[in-house]
């Protein structure tokens, strides 16, 4: 992979990249964005960089329009007009102001969302070239996609942290805070609405998009996120008897949101209702996006997150459950953890000499380990015998210290424990759904892995610690953010919306904690070993 060396604000960073996109697009997924205001079409002339070494190709007509010959001869170029193919060393002359919002690492996060067919949706009159915004409200991250509705054409993506984080990393803590205090409930709703507004503003300024063109906003999320957004019934979601029943989480009035976002005043805001108290519309959207019940069966779907949702399609029945395993997959609460973004160790490979090699996302400096890196690291430590399947370091060690990308990191026993608890919840979910549907784990013909966690996941590592069933790797689909992809589908197509309704009507819910033998099964799945198959 060629390497991009970027100098910005006096520091130098090395970023391996896949050739294809423009320099601006490559930088957009990193921490080092260049200023821009025209969606990268060479119209605004803001994205100035200076080529220090390497081949950047001939200057385009747009560049000659914006840059004087003297600047061009010094190596000054527009990042959106350069498509690097080899190693390139540049300095960012005009860095973008700091933002909480970034482009997702690549299109796989959206699993084909960009290729959705033309819409068959009713379009409002009076708005020319109407746009539609799809939003996935996750416990940890918010992800958005903007489309041209008339042409079904993708325009922009953004993702950023869910600002409700300050009220707790998991849904139960946030729901408890909301049901205990009307002020907290109101603030949590306000925070998310404001965050969506910020993301829209980032798109508007950077892509040169008039927000008044946005004619509809479709939102999916887990039930807790929808209840906290709408400010309704958070307290009901805390009661186990409501977990397998529908709970009304829909907002009563969204005109204030529309005004705050500065979108078309007649815009329609469509919050897709959750399936039940503990299974959100994000899961339903994911099943739509993966054509789950139209593909090979028996099939398993796992949306990894703080509250993971799992579905099993036997070919006749659709069983659904939720496994609250904690935020370990998003690497939250992990001492050396960080989200899957630039600077995260995402892969750990064994080397011939017995050492370990660490791969870092979009940077040569490590800041922490993301979920997939954690899975790899644990799997490698077990392989080399430094960690036991019980989760104990050998020789009484309390952790594993390592150094990579100029940073000293330690994987503690507590970190491993958090991953064990999270993966045990998934293991129990898989085993219980399979046994209910009368399917043996080894019969599975399709395994869909959804969520940002799956993007960098090494399937063999995940299987070796029991996070995924032992099926041939080609049967595992790393599907990315299927919740957002399905939300886009439903926004753009009434056919997809109809499929979602159908899934809602046939899904059968299971509460794992009420299954007989839950505790034994949970304990068995705490071991870091392959999932049992019978």
């Amino acid at each position: 992979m060629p390497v991009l060396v970027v100098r910005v604000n006096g520091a130098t960073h090395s970023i391996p990249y896949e050739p294809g996109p423009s320099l601006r697009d490559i930088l957009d997924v990193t921490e080092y964005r260049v200023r821009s205001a025209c969606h990268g079409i060479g119209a605004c002339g803001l994205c100035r960089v200076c080529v220090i070494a390497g081949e950047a190709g001939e200057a385009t007509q747009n560049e000659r329009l914006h840059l004087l010959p003297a600047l061009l001869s010094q190596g000054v170029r527009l990042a959106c007009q350069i498509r690097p193919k080899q190693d390139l060393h540049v300095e960012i002359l005009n860095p973008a102001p700091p933002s909480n919002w970034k482009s997702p690492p690549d299109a796989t996060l959206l699993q084909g969302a960009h290729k959705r067919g033309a819409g068959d949706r009713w379009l409002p009159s009076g708005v020319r070239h109407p746009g539609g915004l799809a939003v996935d409200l996750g416990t940890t991250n918010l992800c958005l996609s903007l489309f041209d509705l008339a042409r079904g054409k993708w325009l922009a993506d953004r993702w950023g942290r869910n600002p409700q984080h300050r009220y707790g990393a998991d849904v139960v803590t946030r729901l408890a805070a909301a049901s205990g205090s009307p002020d907290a409930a109101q603030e949590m709703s306000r925070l998310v609405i404001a965050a969506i507004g910020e993301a829209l503003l980032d798109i508007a300024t950077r892509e040169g998009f008039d927000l008044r063109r946005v004619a509809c906003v479709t939102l999916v999320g887990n039930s807790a996120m929808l209840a906290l957004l709408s400010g309704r019934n958070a307290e009901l979601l805390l009661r186990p008897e409501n977990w397998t029943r529908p709970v009304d989480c829909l907002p009563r009035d969204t005109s204030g949101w529309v005004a705050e976002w500065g979108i078309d005043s007649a815009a329609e805001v469509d919050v897709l209702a959750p399936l039940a108290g503990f299974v959100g519309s994000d899961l339903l959207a994911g099943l739509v996006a993966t054509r789950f019940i139209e593909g090979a069966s028996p099939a398993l779907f796992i949306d990894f997150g703080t509250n993971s949702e799992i579905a099993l399609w036997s070919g006749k029945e659709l069983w659904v459950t939720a496994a609250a395993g904690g935020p370990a997959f998003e690497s939250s609460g992990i001492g050396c953890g960080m989200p899957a973004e630039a600077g995260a160790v995402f892969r750990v490979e064994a080397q011939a000499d017995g050492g370990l090699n660490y791969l870092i996302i979009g940077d040569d400096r490590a800041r922490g380990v993301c979920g997939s890196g954690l899975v790899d690291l644990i799997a490698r430590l077990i392989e080399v015998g430094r960690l036991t399947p019980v989760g104990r370091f050998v020789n009484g060690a309390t952790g594993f210290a390592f150094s990579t990308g100029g940073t000293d990191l330690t994987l503690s026993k507590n970190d491993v424990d958090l991953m064990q608890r999270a993966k045990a919840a998934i293991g129990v979910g898989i085993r219980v759904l399979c046994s209910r549907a009368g399917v043996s784990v080894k019969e599975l013909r399709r395994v869909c892995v959804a969520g940002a966690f799956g993007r960098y996941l090494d399937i063999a590592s995940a299987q070796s610690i029991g996070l995924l069933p032992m099926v041939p790797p080609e049967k595992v689909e790393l599907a990315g953010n299927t919740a957002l992809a399905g939300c886009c589908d439903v926004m753009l197509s009434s056919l997809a919306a109809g499929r979602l309704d159908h899934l809602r009507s046939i899904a059968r819910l299971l509460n794992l904690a009420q299954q007989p033998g839950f505790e034994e099964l949970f304990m068995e799945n705490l071991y870091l070993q392959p999932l049992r198959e019978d």
Partner: protein
Amino acid sequence: MINPEMNKLVETLLEGDHAAALAEARRLRTAGMASERIVTEGLEAAMQRLDDKCTVESFNLLEIMLAGRAVSAVVNELYPEGMPPERGRDTFVIATLEGDIHDLGKNVTKMVLIGKGYRVVDLGKDCPVENLVNAVEREHAHAVLVSGLITPVIPQVRRVRPALAARGLGGVRVVAGGAALKQATAGELNVDYVAETAFDGARYLDSLARGAV
């Protein structure tokens, strides 16, 4: 100080190897050791070590559960009819109250208490306060332990002491624990003690048994 005869039992319990622990307990008994000594000098020593290890966070959930399962297996072997109340140690009633079905924390606490030689009556999860009070009366319990992971269970916790008092059981201590409850004070929950961990709760009950509180 661990009785050297107990070394192997303590070690197998801490390893969570319940088959080996069971075999060792049988061997000790065949060799003539009284069940009571196996509990007080073996199981309690293992629990003390586990407590020390948990304090420094070097035991994970699986290890605690494995050790707990091994302790339970040994207790069941020594006292197949259940621990006799006349052993002189206190009896406690433990439950996850109505509205909550998370009982992992409760089960860990139960294992710790059994390991310390107490008699524990487990009423399971989603347990009405009424059943709790009936059990206290029936079993002559010295204390009740209630666990709650989720906050909606708090009103039920507050009802426990008045319900006990209404039956003339006002002297029975109430201990609360679990994610939702440990964030509140004893006063807010109307209980005698809020335990930070299973071991913290057990230490409080130890001090009760010694008459220190």
